[in-house]
Structures are given as structure tokens and as C-alpha cells.
């Protein structure tokens, strides 16, 4: 029974990881930039919502308003990141990744300087702070639902709309897309902005689940990267499968073998890489 609870926790954690990782994987696919600031964006979302709402339980409406505001801020931060990467065009991919890492350190250290390095959390908003089926926290069910909704929206945009078709085309053959008169730079920018907005939104969503603290940025970044290593770069399906798998390892795995949980994550990643070095749904690039 308790394992079932763990598995459900894993679903909630996986849903949160998916919201974070899907932006990261699409930004890589579109811009050829590994955005190592993604974890810092998540952390920024959490800290800004914490500062806005003052760490107290608030009404669902106020909470949703704050979450939207934070997501908009994430979009703005995405714009700053894009502008910062621009001068490095033509230099190696490594330099761009390293730049985002440097900016991530600046952002997270700035936030830790504004608040402090200690633990902070925010209770779920009113209406979502109860429990279902006796004692299971309702908020975790809500996170799973939010993950499903966001996943559905991303999938629908990606597979069923003209904008999504442009994004897919830009991953496959940006040269051809430009030749038929599409502004590829604009498509790229919009993916970057959307991905960064999702990252800060995930930070708000995860507030009641993961405590704010120093080091949170690299922790979630690494989990998101493991999701992508498992699922494959630039694949939405890969992000779903990877996030669910990592979510289970981090909850059921920890419950079954607390001492081995760290190695278990490595084992899963290594096994997938042996099978296909580009991840489950990855293509060789």
C-alpha cells in the first residue's frame, strides 16, 4: 500500500520534471543551445513566488495570478538569455552552454543573497491543501493534473498546429524552412521564451513539494538533464518517458533501497546509454 503511495508521489514528481525538461529539450533541439540556466530559472520562479506571496497560504486565484506573473517573468528572462547568447554565435556550442551556466550562478546567488540560504517553502493554495482518499495530499494530485494538461497542450501545439509544424520543421531542416520564407530566428526565439516561461512556472508548481534552498538549482537541473539523457534530445515523448522514469526512481527507488537510490539513477541512465547513446527516442545528431 505504501509503495502505491510512493508510486503516486513519483507520478507527481515526474509531472513536475516533465514541465521543466520539455522546455530544456525543445530549446536544445531548436537553438542548439544547452540551457544550463534552466535549473536557476526554476529556482527563480520558486523564490519570486515565495517573495510575492510571503510564504503564507493564499487563495487559489491569487496563487494562479502569481504563477502567471512568474511565468511571464520567465519569458522575459528567456529574452535576456537569448540576447546574452547572441554575441557568441559562431563560437563553439560549449561556450554557449558555459555562458548559460555562468549566468545561472549569477541568478541563483543573487536570489540567495536577497532571501537567504536556508530552507523555505510555501503551503499549497486554499482549496488544494486538503487530502483525498483519506490522507493523500490533494496538491500532488493537482500537480499530476497540471502536468497532464501542460503535456497535452504542448503535444497539441506541437503536432496539430501550424506553429508546431514550423517548430518541427525548424528542428529537422532550418535551411529549407528559411528558404521558403519563414523567419526561423523568430521561431527559435519563441521556443526559447516558452521554454523559459515553463521553467519558472515549474518553480511555482514545485514550491510545496521541494523546499527552496541553496543548491536547488543544480539539483533540479541535473534531474532534468537525466530525463533528457534517458529520453533523448528534442523529443517530447522522450521527455514524458524520462520524467516518469526518474520520478519513480526518486520515490519508489528511494523507498525500497534508500542507500542505493543514487546509484539506481546512474544505473538507469547507463543502461539507456548502452542501448542507444542518443537516448530512448533520440536521433543521432
Amino acid at each position, binding site marked *: 500500500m505504501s509503495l502505491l503511495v510512493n508510486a503516486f508521489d513519483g507520478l507527481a514528481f515526474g509531472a513536475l520534471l516533465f514541465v521543466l525538461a520539455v522546455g530544456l529539450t525543445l530549446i*536544445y533541439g531548436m537553438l542548439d543551445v*544547452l540551457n544550463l540556466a534552466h535549473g536557476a530559472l526554476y529556482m527563480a520562479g520558486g523564490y519570486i513566488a515565495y517573495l510575492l506571496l510571503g510564504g503564507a497560504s493564499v487563495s487559489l486565484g491569487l496563487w494562479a495570478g502569481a504563477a502567471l506573473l512568474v511565468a511571464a517573468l520567465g519569458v522575459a528572462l528567456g529574452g535576456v538569455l537569448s540576447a546574452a547568447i547572441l*554575441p*557568441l554565435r559562431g*563560437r563553439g*556550442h*560549449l*561556450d554557449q*552552454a*558555459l*555562458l548559460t*551556466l*555562468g*549566468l*545561472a*550562478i*549569477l541568478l541563483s*546567488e*543573487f536570489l*540567495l*543573497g536577497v532571501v537567504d*540560504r536556508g530552507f523555505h517553502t510555501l503551503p499549497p493554495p486554499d482549496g488544494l491543501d486538503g487530502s483525498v482518499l483519506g490522507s493523500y495530499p490533494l496538491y500532488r494530485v493537482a500537480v499530476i493534473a497540471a502536468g497532464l494538461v501542460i503535456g497535452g497542450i504542448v503535444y497539441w501545439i506541437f503536432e496539430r498546429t501550424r506553429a508546431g509544424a514550423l517548430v518541427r520543421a525548424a528542428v529537422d531542416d532550418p535551411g529549407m524552412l528559411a528558404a521558403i520564407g519563414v523567419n526561423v530566428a523568430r521561431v527559435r526565439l519563441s521556443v526559447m521564451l516558452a521554454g523559459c516561461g515553463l521553467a519558472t512556472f515549474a518553480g511555482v508548481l514545485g514550491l510545496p513539494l521541494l523546499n527552496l534552498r*541553496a*543548491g536547488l538549482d*543544480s*539539483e533540479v*537541473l*541535473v534531474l532534468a*538533464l*537525466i530525463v*533528457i*539523457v534517458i529520453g533523448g*534530445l528534442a523529443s517530447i515523448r522522450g521527455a514524458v518517458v524520462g520524467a516518469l522514469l526518474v520520478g519513480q526512481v526518486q520515490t519508489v527507488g528511494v523507498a525500497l533501497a*534508500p*542507500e542505493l*537510490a*543514487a*546509484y539506481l*539513477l*546512474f544505473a538507469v*541512465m*547507463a543502461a539507456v*546509454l*548502452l542501448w542507444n*547513446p*542518443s*537516448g530512448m527516442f533520440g536521433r543521432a545528431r
Partner: protein
Amino acid sequence: MRAILAAAVLAAMPFVLGAYQLSLLTGGLAYGLMAASLALLVGHAGLPSLGHAAFLGVGAYAAGLTAKHLSESAVVQLGAAVLAGVVFALVTGWFAVRTRGFFFLMFTLAIGEIAVQAATRSGRVTGGDNGLSGIPVSTLFGLETAMPYVVVFYWWALAVVAAGFAVLAAVRRGPLGAAIAGTRENEARMAAFGYSVPGVRLAAVTVAGAVCAAGGALVAQKDTFVAPTHLGVGVSVLLLVMVLLGGRDSLAGPALAAVGLIALRDVTSGALGDKWLLVEGALFVLCVYLLPEGLAGLWRKRARAA
């Protein structure tokens, strides 16, 4: 020739510097060796590792545990650290070298963070979050009874660092170094020549890992303390800053940057505290923008202009 001169000057430092400066320099040299080992991966092999601190930690924990449970001899501890570094490099590298570019970066970052978790969770062996404390001061051939410990330990560290540099330089100049550079430049051609590309890469990771673990042993012996943070992304990034600042195609550049940065960090740590990380981040960003080839690049540019 220049290397011998540098070693001679460094060996004479105990006659010039006070105990505090000497201890700063000892730490700087240890990090210099580790930064140079990372430069072999990043610059020479084209393998951008974001988890190099894992080797520091593996070496430091191996040396610390050996000191506590087996032997107080610094040489034995060094041997244990290098052995642990080689084993860790073979186990993780075997998977890592099958990946390319960003995947390598992500994989190494993940390994570093998993190593932190492993060190934190295995509390009975490693002391968990509190770190491994109570490491006895290591013995150095009995010389420590005759001279101040700081001085003897400095010479010991210098000897280890010099030996590590000799290994790195020999690998770079030798046939293995040529093969490593070949896999960086053109994988397909190296494979056509009959080289095993993963094999050559694994050799590069193993050499860099073993040398870095030796540096980790020095850190454990100097501080008589190891913490899980030694394995973390923060230290990996610090090592990478040293490589970028010094120049990734050079061995001496990263080492010089390391000595400078460690001295700067330790001197300002009282005043800056946690804000040191802001300085580190700013340095990182500035390096990427302004010094694509590091300080060594500036040096070469001037040499070309003259």
C-alpha cells in the same frame, strides 16, 4: 627547461614565504594540478566534463579513509587515491565516452551530482552530510619531526604536483596524446586508421581522473577533512573556470589561474563569505565573453604580434 626552472623557484618558496602564504600556495598547487588534468579533457580530448570534481572527491575520500583506517603514510594514501581514481574513471568513463558533446557534458554533470548523493547517503562510511572528519595528520617519511610540518607538506605537495604534471605533459606529447587529439579532430578517420575511439577516449578520462584524484588526496591531507560538497557542481565549475581563464589548450595556464583563484578565494573568504560564488559566476561569464582562449591565448597573441 621552463618547467624545471618553475619547479626550482617553487621549491625555494619556503625560504621566502610565511607559513600562511605557504599553506595558500599548497592548496593552489593542488587545484592547479586538478585544473590541468581537466584541461587535458576539455582542450586536448574535446570532452567537456562538468563533473570533474567527482574525481577530486573520490581521491580525497579514498585518501581520508585510508588515513583513518589503514595507514598514516602520505604515500600509501596517495596510492589509494590514484587507484580509486582509476577505478572510478573506468566505471563511469566506460559509459561516458560513448556519448558526444552535450551528452557527455550532461552525463558527467549527472555523475558528479550522483557522487554527491552517494557520499551524503552512505553516512556510516563517509560521515554523510557532516563530511569525513578526524583524518589523522599524515606522516611524510619522518621528515615532519625534523622540520615545520607546513614546509614538509608543501614540498610533498610540490613533488606530487610536479609528478602529475610530468604525467600529463608526457601523455600530451606522446603517441597517446596524438591519438587523443585525433579523436577530437576527426573521429571517423581515427576509426578508419584502426583506433578504437571509445578506447582512446577512455584512456584520456582515466589519465585525467587518476591525476585529479592525486590532487584530491592532497586536499584531504592538507585540510584533514572531506565533505560531499567537494564532489559537487560548485567545485566542478570552479575547476572549469580555472581552465577557461588559463586557456584550455594549455597545462600551465589553468594551473596559474588555479593558484591565483584559490589564493583569491581563501584571502577574501572572510570578507565575502557566500558572495564569493557571485564573483565566481561573474568571472565565468567574463571569461566566456572576453577570453575565448584564456590568458594563455592573450600570451600567444602578444608573442605572435612581437
